[in-house]
C-alpha cells in the first residue's frame, strides 16, 4: 500500500490584498556625482552608469563612475581632513557628530528603507525593520565609544590610523556602510567608501545626511563605481587601512595586493554556514529558523544557513514542515509589506544562482521549489532546496549567495561536527536543540565566528561579526570592532 502523506492545501483561493509601500515620499535625483571633500564632484572621466530596480528592470538613476584620479582626489580630501580637523578634534565632539548621523538616519528611516528596497530588491519589511534601524543603531553605538577608547584596551594607548578605504557589498548597502563608517569615525579615522555598483543609492543618500550633519568636509568621502574603483582604493599608497566585505575571491586579491605595504586590513568574506537540527530541537521554531536562515534577503547573506543538517530520526517531518512553510512564502513585489522573498539583486547574480541550480541537478540532487508564480519582469528565483546531496557536491562546498538550501543528514554529534567544519569557510553556524549541554558542546566545536543557538541571522551593533578560516579576519561590531581601526 502506498504511504499516505497529508499535505496542506494552500490553494484556498484566498490571497492577501496588495499592500505596497508608497514611493511618493522619497527623493531620488536623476544623476549622482561623487561626494568628495564635502562637495558633489563630477567624475573626471565624465562617465555615469545606470542603477536599476531589479524587481522591474526600470532605471532609477545615473551614478558617477570614479576612476583612479577621482579616488586620489577623495584620498587627498580624507587625508587633509584627518590632518587638519578630525585627528585634532576632541573625541567627545567627534562622537557628537556620529550621534547626529544616527539621528538623521532615524528621522529619514522611511525614505532610506524605500530606496534600499527599490535599488536592491529586498522586501520592504526587511529594509524597514532590519537594515535601516540597525544602520542607525550602529552609528548610535559607536558614537559613544569615541571618547571611551582607552577603556576598551587595558594597559594600551589606542591611536587612530589615518585614512580608511572601505568597500561594501550589495546585499545590505546602507547597513554595511554603517558597519564600516561608524567605527572608523569613532576611532578618529577619515574615510573613503565605495558602495557596490548595483546598490549605490543609499550610500549617496547617506552622503546627503552627512552633509546635513555638518561633519567637516572630507571626513567621509563616497566614490561610486565597480571593481576598478575598488582596486584604485586598495592600491592607493596613502591609505592606511582597507576594510572589505565581499567574496573570498576578491578578499584574496586584496590581501595579495597589500602584501608588503603598511596597510592594515579587515576582510569579511564568504560563508557556507551549517544549520544543524537535532531530533530534540523545538521543530517548529527550527523550521522557521531554517527558512529565515536561507531565504532572508533572498539568500544574499554571507552568513546564510545554506547547508542544513537534519538528524536522521526527524528527517521526514522536518522536510515536510519545510516544504509546507515554503509553500506559504510570499514571493514578489519587494515594496509590498507582505512580501517574504524579494527580487534577486542583479541579472549577473541570477545567472550565478541558476548556474548552481543546474549544477545541483546535474550532480543528481533532488530539487524542490514551491508552486508559486513569479513576476514577469525583473530577476527572480524561487526558494529552492536540494536533498540527496553529498559532502563533495559543489552546491554544498561553494557559496551560491542565493535562496538555495542544500540538505544533508547525520546520526551522531561527532559526525555532524566533522561535516559542518569540512569547508574552507568559517563565518557562521546554527544549532537547534533543547538540550543545553549538547548546545554548548556543539557551539564550542564549530569553527565559525558567529554561532546562533536556537535562532538564526540575528545582528546587533554590540555583537562582533566576522569569520574563521577563509571567511576572513578581523571583527566588525561591538568592542572588538574598534581594534581594526586603531594602532597601539
Amino acid at each position, binding site marked *: 500500500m502506498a504511504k499516505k502523506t497529508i499535505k496542506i492545501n494552500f490553494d484556498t483561493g484566498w490571497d492577501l490584498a496588495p499592500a505596497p509601500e508608497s514611493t511618493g515620499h522619497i527623493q531620488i535625483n536623476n544623476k549622482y556625482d561623487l561626494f568628495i571633500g564635502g562637495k558633489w564632484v563630477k567624475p573626471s572621466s565624465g562617465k555615469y552608469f545606470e542603477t536599476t530596480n531589479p524587481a522591474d528592470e526600470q532605471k532609477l538613476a545615473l551614478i558617477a563612475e570614479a576612476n583612479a584620479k577621482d579616488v586620489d582626489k577623495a584620498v587627498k580630501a580624507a587625508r587633509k581632513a584627518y590632518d587638519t580637523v578630525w585627528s585634532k578634534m576632541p573625541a567627545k565632539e567627534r562622537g557628537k557628530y556620529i550621534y547626529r548621523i544616527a539621528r538623521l538616519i532615524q528621522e529619514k528611516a522611511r525614505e532610506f528603507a524605500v530606496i534600499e528596497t527599490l535599488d536592491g530588491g529586498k522586501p520592504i519589511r526587511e529594509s524597514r525593520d532590519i537594515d535601516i534601524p540597525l544602520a542607525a*543603531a550602529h552609528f548610535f553605538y559607536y558614537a559613544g565609544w569615541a571618547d571611551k577608547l582607552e577603556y576598551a584596551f*587595558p*594597559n*594600551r594607548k589606542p591611536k587612530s590610523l589615518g585614512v580608511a578605504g572601505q568597500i561594501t557589498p550589495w546585499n545590505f548597502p546602507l547597513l554595511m556602510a554603517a558597519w564600516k563608517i561608524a567605527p572608523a569615525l569613532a576611532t578618529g579615522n577619515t574615510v573613503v567608501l565605495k558602495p557596490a555598483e548595483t546598490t549605490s543609492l543609499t550610500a549617496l543618500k547617506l552622503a546627503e545626511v552627512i552633509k546635513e550633519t555638518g561633519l567637516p568636509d572630507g571626513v567621509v568621502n563616497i566614490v561610486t563605481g565597480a571593481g576598478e574603483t575598488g582596486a584604485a582604493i586598495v592600491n592607493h599608497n596613502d591609505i592606511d587601512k582597507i576594510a572589505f566585505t565581499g567574496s*573570498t575571491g576578491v*578578499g*584574496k586579491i586584496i*590581501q*595579495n595586493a*597589500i*602584501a*608588503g605595504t603598511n596597510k592594515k586590513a579587515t*576582510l569579511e*568574506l564568504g560563508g557556507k554556514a551549517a544549520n544543524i537540527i537535532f531530533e530534540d530541537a523545538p521543530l517548529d*521554531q527550527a523550521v*522557521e*529558523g531554517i527558512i529565515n536562515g536561507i531565504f532572508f534577503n533572498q539568500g544574499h547573506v554571507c552568513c546564510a544557513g545554506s547547508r542544513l543538517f537534519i538528524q536522521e530520526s526527524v528527517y521526514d517531518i522536518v522536510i515536510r514542515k519545510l516544504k509546507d512553510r515554503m509553500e506559504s512564502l510570499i514571493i514578489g513585489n519587494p515594496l509590498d509589506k507582505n512580501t517574504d522573498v524579494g527580487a534577486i539583486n542583479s541579472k549577473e547574480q541570477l545567472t550565478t544562482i541558476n548556474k548552481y541550480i543546474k549544477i545541483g541537478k546535474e550532480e543528481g540532487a533532488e530539487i524542490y521549489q514551491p508552486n508559486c508564480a513569479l513576476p514577469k519582469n525583473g530577476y527572480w528565483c524561487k526558494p529552492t532546496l536540494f536533498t540527496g546531496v553529498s559532502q563533495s557536491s559543489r552546491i554544498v562546498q561553494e557559496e551560491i549567495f542565493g535562496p538555495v538550501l542544500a540538505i544533508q543528514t547525520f546520526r551522531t554529534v561527532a559526525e555532524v561536527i566533522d561535516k559542518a567544519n569540512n569547508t*574552507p569557510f568559517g563565518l557562521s553556524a546554527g544549532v537547534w536543540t533543547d538540550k543545553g549541554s549538547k*548546545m554548548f558542546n556543539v*557551539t*564550542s566545536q564549530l569553527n*565559525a*565566528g*558567529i*554561532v*546562533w*543557538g*536556537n*535562532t538564526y541571522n*540575528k545582528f*546587533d551593533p*554590540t*555583537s*562582533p*561579526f*566576522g569569520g*574563521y*578560516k*577563509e571567511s*576572513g*579576519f578581523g*571583527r566588525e561590531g*561591538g*568592542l*572588538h570592532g574598534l581594534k581594526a581601526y586603531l594602532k*597601539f
Partner: protein
Amino acid sequence: MSRLEILKTYKIYIGGKFPRTESGRFYTPKNGDKALGNICLSSRKDFRNAVVAARSAFGKWSGATAYNRSQVLYRIAEMLEGRRAQFVEEIILQGSKKAEAEKEVNTSIDRIIYYAGWCDKYSQIFSAVNPVATSHFNFTAPEPTGVVSVFAPEENSLIGLVSSVMPIIASGNTCVVLACENMPLCAVTFAEVLNSSDVPGGVINLLTGKRSELLEHMASHMDVNAFLYTGTDKKEMEAIQKLGVANLKRIQLKDFSKIYSSEHETPYYIEDFLEMKTTWHPIEKIGATGSGY
C-alpha cells in the same frame, strides 16, 4: 689518560620524537672558526610531517583546561631552571659572554612563568557579554586559531624562541618553529626540556635549517592557519604575506630586536593568535522586548 668526551647529536623535534631530518642533510653553523655542530637541514617533508603532528595535537591541547595548560607551561619553566647551566654553556659556545648568557636564560625562564600565568586569564580580558537590543544572551569568547608557523628570531637562540612560542601555545594553538639558523643549539636542547615537561608531543615542533629553503612551504601550507614572523627583512615579510593568501593565513609581523624589553610580555601577543567566537541564544520572554526566536 684523559676521558674522551661524548659529543651531542643535534636532532629535530616532531610530534614529541627526535628524528633526524628525512633528507639526511646537515649544515654546520660556526662561532668564528669553531663549528657548533652538524645541524639537521630540515626539508619540506620534515615541515609537512611537523604540520601533521601539530594538527593532531591541536584538538587535545586546545581542549585541555586553561588551568592544565597553565601548569604545563609552569612545568617548562621548572625544567629549564633545572638545566640552566647547560643552556648558559651553549649560549657561551655560540659566542656570548657569561653574564649575557645568564641574563638570557634567567629572562627566558621568567618569561615562561609570565605566560604560564596568562593561560587561565587572557580569555577574561578579551571576552565580552554583549548587551544586544533583542531578547538574546550574546557573548564573545576567544578560541585558538590553530596551527602556527613560526620563524624564531635570528638574533638570539633561546629568549627569542621562548618569547615567540609561549604566547602561541598559551591559548591552545600548536606550532611548527624554525629555530635561529646560526645559533640553533639552544633550540634543540629546549626541545629536550619540552619533552621532559608535560607538553604533549606535537604542540611545539622544532626544526633547524634555512629560512630560504623553508619560507615558501611554511607560509603556503594549506593546513597552517597563521604565521609569526619575528624580524625586519622586508622581502621575507612580503613573500610570507603573499604566500599566505591562499588560505587567508593570519600573519603577524613582529620586530623582536629589543627582546629584553617588557613589550614582549603582553597578553596581546596571545590575542594575535585567537579567533573571536560570538554565540547567540534566545532568552524566554523577558521584560518588554519579547521572545527572541
